[in-house]
C-alpha cells in the first residue's frame, strides 16, 4: 500500500481526478480557460471545478450567463483569439441548444478556414444517466457527437482515465467532446499522474471467450458482469473504448479476433446508437471468425425515464448476461 502510494500515485475520485487535471492544465498553460454555468464560486454542480477560480483567478475560471449556445460560441471566438478553452455544459441535455455551434462551427472552423483558425476546445459534458436526475439530465449523446465531422470524442470510465484523457484532450489542438460519466464522479481509484497511456481503446479485463465493448459507466458494469460470468466458466474480455471518435478499430478487431464473440453495451437508445457502429466495425473486420452476430445491449428507443424507471432502462447486469447468453448459444440458422 505504501508502495502503491508512491509520489505519482494518488487515490482520487473521478471528480477529483478531473479537478486535479484541470488545475494542472491551468497552471501549465496560461492560455487555458475554464468556463460555463456555475463553474466559478460554486465549483460546478458536480464540484469538478471546485476551487479553480480561487486558485487560478476569476478571469481564467469564470461563470457565463445561462446560455449554452453562447458557451460554445464564446469558446470558438476565444480559440480564434489564441486561447485554449475548456467550456462546460452543465448536463448532457443542454448540449442540444448548442448543437448548431457544435456541428456547424466548432467542428468546421479549422476546415472552413483551411487551417488558419485552430479549435483547441475541450467541451466537458457530464453525461449519461443513473443518478435519478430530472428530465433531460440523463442523455447519452455519443452517437450524435461521433457522427459529426471535425470532432473527436473521449469518454473516461474511471479516475485514471478521467485524468489522463482530459489532459490529452485539452492539449490537443482539435476540438474534443469530453463525456464524463456522472454516475461515476464519486468512484475512487488510483491515479498515476504521469501516465502516457491515453491513445485508442483499452483492455480493461483480459478474457478468452467473449468481448464486451463499453464506455463510461458501462465499463464498471461490464467488469461486474465479467466476474459473474466466471461462475459459469465464461471468461469475458472487457474493452473500454475510451475514444468514441475516432474509434480504435484495430483494438476491437484484435480482441474479437481472439474471442470470436462480442457484445456491445451502451445506455443510449438502440437505433442508430454507437453500438451499431462498433458492431459493424467488428463484423467488417472479423466476419470470417465471428461465431455469432455481435449483440447489442442498450437503452430502449424511448425517452430517458424518471428515476423510478431508470434501472429498467439502463442495461442491467441481467440484460447483459442475457446478451452474452444469446451470443454463446447462437447457432447458424
Amino acid at each position: 500500500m505504501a508502495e502503491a502510494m508512491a509520489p505519482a500515485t494518488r487515490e482520487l475520485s473521478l471528480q477529483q481526478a478531473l479537478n486535479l487535471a484541470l488545475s494542472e492544465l491551468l497552471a501549465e498553460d496560461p492560455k487555458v480557460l475554464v468556463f460555463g454555468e456555475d463553474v466559478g464560486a460554486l465549483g460546478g454542480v458536480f464540484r469538478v471545478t471546485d476551487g479553480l477560480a480561487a486558485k487560478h483567478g476569476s478571469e481564467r475560471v469564470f461563470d457565463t450567463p445561462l446560455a449554452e449556445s453562447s458557451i460554445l460560441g464564446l469558446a470558438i471566438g476565444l480559440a480564434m483569439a489564441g486561447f485554449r478553452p475548456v467550456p462546460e455544459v452543465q448536463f448532457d441535455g443542454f448540449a442540444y441548444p448548442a448543437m448548431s455551434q457544435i456541428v456547424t462551427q466548432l467542428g468546421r472552423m479549422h476546415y472552413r478556414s483551411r487551417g488558419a483558425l485552430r479549435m483547441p476546445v475541450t467541451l466537458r459534458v457530464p453525461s449519461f444517466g443513473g443518478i435519478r436526475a430530472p428530465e433531460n439530465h440523463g442523455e447519452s449523446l455519443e452517437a450524435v457527437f461521433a457522427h459529426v465531422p471535425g470532432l473527436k470524442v473521449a469518454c473516461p470510465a474511471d479516475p485514471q482515465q478521467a485524468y489522463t484523457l482530459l489532459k490529452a484532450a485539452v492539449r490537443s489542438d482539435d476540438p474534443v467532446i469530453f463525456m464524463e460519466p456522472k454516475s461515476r464522479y464519486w468512484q475512487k481509484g488510483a491515479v498515476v499522474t504521469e501516465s502516457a497511456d491515453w491513445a485508442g481503446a483499452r483492455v480493461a479485463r483480459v478474457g478468452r471467450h467473449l468481448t464486451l465493448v463499453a464506455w463510461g459507466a458501462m465499463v464498471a458494469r461490464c467488469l461486474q458482469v465479467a466476474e459473474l460470468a466466471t461462475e459459469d466458466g465464461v471468461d469475458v474480455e472487457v474493452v473500454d473504448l475510451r475514444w468514441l471518435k475516432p474509434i480504435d478499430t484495430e483494438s476491437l478487431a484484435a480482441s474479437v479476433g481472439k474471442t470470436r464473440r462480442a457484445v456491445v453495451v451502451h445506455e443510449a437508445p438502440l437505433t442508430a446508437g454507437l453500438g451499431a457502429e462498433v458492431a459493424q466495425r467488428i463484423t467488417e473486420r472479423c466476419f470470417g471468425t465471428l461465431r455469432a452476430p455481435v449483440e447489442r445491449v442498450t437503452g430502449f428507443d424511448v425517452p430517458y425515464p424518471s428515476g423510478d424507471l431508470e434501472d429498467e432502462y439502463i442495461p442491467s447486469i441481467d440484460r447483459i448476461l442475457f446478451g452474452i447468453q444469446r451470443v454463446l448459444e447462437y447457432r447458424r440458422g
Partner: protein
Amino acid sequence: MQRVQGLGRSGAAGSAAPPVPELPAVPPMTAPELREVYRLMSSVRRLDEAAVAWQRQGILPAYAPLLGQEAAQVGSAFAVDRERDFLFPTYREAGVARTLGVDMVEYMSTHRATWHGGLWDAAEHRLAPIQAVVAGSVLHAVGWAHGQRLAAASPGDPQDPVGGLGVAVAYLGDGASSQGDVHEAMNIAAVFAAPVVFFVQNNGWAISVPTERQVAGGSVAARGAGYGMPALRIDGNDAEAVVSATRRALAYARAGRGPVIVEAVTYRRGPHSTADDPGRYRTLDDERRDAGADPLERLRARLLGEGLANEAFVAECDAAAAAEAEAVREGVLALGPRPGAEMFDLVFAEPTEELLRQKAQWRKESEHG
C-alpha cells in the same frame, strides 16, 4: 413600406425606440380575493416547506423550493381564466400548480422521481408538464397563443375577438432570460401580436449566478420597449401588485393587442434545489439584506392591519395548510413506481412494431414483480 422609419429625411441618427402602448387599468382586489390569495399562499408555503423536509427524510430524491416566491406564483395564477388560458411552468412552480387546483400528489410525483413532467393531465388542468429545460416551453406558449388568434380569426376583427382570446402565460426566471429562445419568443410574439404574458420571476439568482452577472441592464422588463411591447416591473413579493399586473397584462393580451412582459422582482430565499449549497456563493448577511420582506407575512400584516381578516382566519388557513400538507405527504408516500411498460406505451400515439418488440424483450429480461 418606408424602410428608413426612425430616420428623418436628413438621415439623422437615433435609436428609433418604437412606441409602447399603455396597459388597461384594473379595479383593486376585493377583500374576499385577498383572503383567498392568502389562503392559497399559506397552503403553498406549508407544502413547500414540507417538501424540503420530505427530501431530508428520503421521501423525495430532490426538490426545488419556491420559498419567498409565493406571492409571484399564487398571484399570477390567481389572475388567469382557468377555463381558457393555458400556463407553461418551469420546475419551480408548485405555487402555480396549487393555485390552479392541480392535485399536489400528482405534482410532487416529479420530485418523487415517479414521472418526469408530473402525473396530472396537462390538457385538462391547462398547465403544461413540468419543464426541466430552462426556457424550454416559452416558445410553446407563443405557439399556443398564436393558435388562439388563428382559431378566433375568420369573420370578425382579430384585433377584437368575440369574448376575448385565451392567453398563454409563460413562466421563466432571470436566468432563463439569457437563453436565445426567450428573445425569439418575445420577438415572434410581438410580430404576431400573440396573446402571451411572459411572467418573469426575477428571484435574484440562477443557481449561483446573481442577476447582475446574468441580465445585462439588470431588468428583463426593460427589454419590452425594444420590441414595442408593454412591460411591467413589479414588486413580486406584493401579492396584490402581482395579481393586478397580471390582470392588466391578461386584459391587454386577451383583447388581441399582443404580448406583455411582467417581471416580478422577488428573491429565492432557499437553495436552488435541495442539492444546492448557497453558502458557496452568498452569505447569510446577503440573504438578510436582499430578500426583503416575506411575502406571506406582508400579506398577513396587511389583511390584519386593514381589518380584511382576523387572527382566526389566519389560524384557520394555517390549520388547513397543515392538514393538506399531511394528506399530500401520505399520497406521495403511497406513490408506487409506474409500470415499466409505460416507458414504451406512452412514447407514441400510434405504437410501432419496433417498440412492441423492445417491450417484449424488456418483459422477458427485466420485468420485476
